[in-house]
């Protein structure tokens, strides 16, 4: 269970760092950071797991399974962002489907356009020909270019999230209000997409892609490459989250979650801090969506609405919203459970999903990642009697801070 020690760096990641900074300031030896060796072990374990996932999966599984796991990896990329915004920042982002959808549709438009370009300079994506749409809608035009597409995948969600986030956070709209408005956003986007029958495929969505930036999707080797690309992006996102967590900004984000007014009194702008985290989460969701399309081969409003957006959140909640690896592992595990359980018991999955959500939220708000912490604390309490464990106490100032954070 190398996993359990990862949460040392987790809901209160700012904790150990803060302690160390503070201690150094007071001229004491760098505090009791008992977690470092264990943390190193955990990260080593994760690195091994990541490499195994990246290299071994394509070696031992067929194209179908590789694609299946690739889909999980895309969902995990979204989860990293949710972990950042929700776990660290206390912003329940229930509308990640909207940003996921932006990335996915932009990528899908580009792929359909480049497929069509092979057939002729004025050829249209086939679904448009079927629906009798004579010319290309204006908003498709920019996505002929690969560069514009890649930029749009990153910048469009940033723009939307930036505008929405800043306008809400500036007016101190938060907590439940923020969550509900996010949900309204994703509901609106889904309805909007369904309405775009002849320009975005309506409820059928976009599908039938032949190539991904010049790589034929029929070739299993290319499929493997895209899978590896997704794995690489996931690792990069986790690294980014780790770096954020350790940075000054990360501490500010956690501080804003736990005491927004105090942060304001200290002279920082909580609205800016929250917007940045929200934008980062939106970008990650968009990138996850963009990679989802070549791997899965279809994007439709059903992958985007309110329910899929909550499904993203479920994985994060199960894994541990405040930890570094919790969201990733939770998302992978829940996606895997869904694909295997839903096949075996189609109606059982809904019950399982609902009960899982209820149980995790009520009994284990910190997710699986907090189990180790609970267990260690329990052991410390019973084993060492009244002597406080010097290794854990000062370094973990706030026990289970994640649920507290959600109060704000």
């Amino acid at each position, binding site marked *: 269970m190398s996993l359990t020690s990862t949460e040392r760096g987790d809901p209160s990641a700012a904790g150990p760092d803060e302690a160390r900074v503070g201690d150094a300031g007071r001229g004491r030896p760098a505090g009791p950071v008992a977690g470092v060796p264990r943390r190193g072990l955990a990260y080593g374990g994760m690195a091994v797991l990541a490499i195994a996932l990246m290299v071994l999966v394509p070696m031992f599984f067929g194209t179908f399974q590789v694609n299946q796991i690739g889909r999980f990896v895309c969902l995990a990329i979204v989860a990293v962002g949710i972990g950042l915004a929700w776990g660290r920042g206390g912003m329940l982002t229930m509308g990640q489907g909207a940003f996921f959808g932006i990335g996915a549709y932009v990528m899908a438009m580009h792929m359909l356009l480049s497929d069509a370009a092979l057939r002729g300079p004025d050829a249209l994506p086939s679904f448009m020909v079927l629906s009798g749409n004579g010319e290309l809608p204006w908003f498709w035009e920019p996505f002929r270019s690969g560069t514009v597409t890649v930029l749009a995948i990153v910048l469009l969600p940033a723009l939307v999230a930036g505008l929405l986030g800043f306008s809400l956070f500036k007016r101190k709209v938060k907590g439940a209000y923020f969550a509900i408005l996010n949900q309204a956003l994703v509901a609106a986007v889904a309805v909007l997409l369904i309405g775009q029958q002849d320009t975005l495929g309506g409820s059928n969505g976009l599908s039938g892609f032949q190539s991904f930036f010049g790589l034929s999707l029929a070739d299993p080797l290319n499929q493997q490459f895209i899978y590896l690309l997704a794995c690489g992006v996931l690792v990069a996102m986790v690294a980014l989250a780790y770096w954020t967590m350790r940075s000054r900004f990360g501490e500010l984000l956690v501080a804003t979650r736990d005491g927004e007014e105090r942060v304001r009194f200290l002279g920082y702008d909580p609205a800016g801090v929250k917007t940045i985290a929200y934008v980062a989460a939106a970008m990650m969701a968009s990138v996850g969506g963009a990679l989802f399309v070549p791997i899965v081969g279809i994007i439709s409003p059903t992958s985007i609405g309110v329910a899929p957006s909550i499904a993203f959140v479920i994985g994060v909640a199960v894994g541990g919203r405040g930890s570094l690896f919790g969201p990733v592992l939770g998302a992978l595990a829940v996606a895997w459970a869904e694909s295997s359980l839903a096949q075996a018991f189609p109606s059982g999955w809904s019950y399982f999903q609902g009960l899982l959500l209820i149980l995790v939220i009520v009994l284990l708000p910190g997710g699986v990642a907090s189990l180790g912490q609970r267990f260690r604390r329990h052991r410390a309490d019973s084993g060492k009697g009244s002597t406080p464990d010097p290794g854990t106490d000062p370094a973990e100032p706030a026990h289970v801070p994640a649920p507290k954070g*959600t109060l704000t």
Partner: protein
Amino acid sequence: MDILISQLVAGVSIGSVLLLVAVGLSLTFGQMGVINMAHGEFIMVGAYTTYVVQRILVDAGLSLLFAIPAAFVVAGALGLIIEQFLIRHLYRRPLDTLLATFGVGLVLQQVARDVFGAQAVDVAVPGWLQGNLQVFGAVVPYSRLFILVLSIAVVGAVVLFMAKSPAGRQIRATVLNRDLAETSGISSRRMDRMTFFLGSGLAGVAGVAVTLIGSTGPTIGTSYIVDAFLVVVAGGIGKIKGAVIAAFTLGVLQALIEYSTSASLAKFFVLVIVVAFLQLRPQGLFAVKTRSLA
């Protein structure tokens, strides 16, 4: 001009449904700070109750009248059960109530699918609600008019209950200052249960109304819940007055935008308008000082 009036009438009609759906939410969300995502499923429960009552009584007119109290009690009882086993553990964690009740919603949807089938069922509209009324050249189905009347009656009853009845006063006292209410001999647990029973029951009544508009399926609740939350957010939590104004304003706005663009764009613009409105009044139209929600 005719078109404008007919859009206005359509807007009022949308607004009355929104209001009916949002009144219960306004109670549980506004008064108790519980974000009940399963509210949509309580609506579904009310709708299926109507269906069952009609299967038993057959006569559509009679069954509609019986369905209203039946749906209120069934949905309310379900709400009580969920409050007892789930929500009362989460009172201090509003965002978590949102997620946990979404889980409840998933389970309830699946129960409905297993009991009634995935296919939507239809509830017969009674004869006296078939036909249309002409209002200034606009055509209003009687069933829509019935919903308008029902929502006005429900809102009136809720307002009277909260303002005049001892129980309503006790609920308000608990919301305003839980400790002081306890000290005065009010059982805040009882008030929580009562509020939740009322809120859930009202969702059930809304469920009866939506059977008059369309088919009843397991996911019927999800199509109303987001709009209803927008109404509560725009109206300001805990204020019925805010919910009334917000519901009709959003309904009319949606109808007007729908006319000039399309139904799907309208939803989007309504969201944009609500966000813009929150720039002016972040607390919604009317704010009540309650236990801080956010």
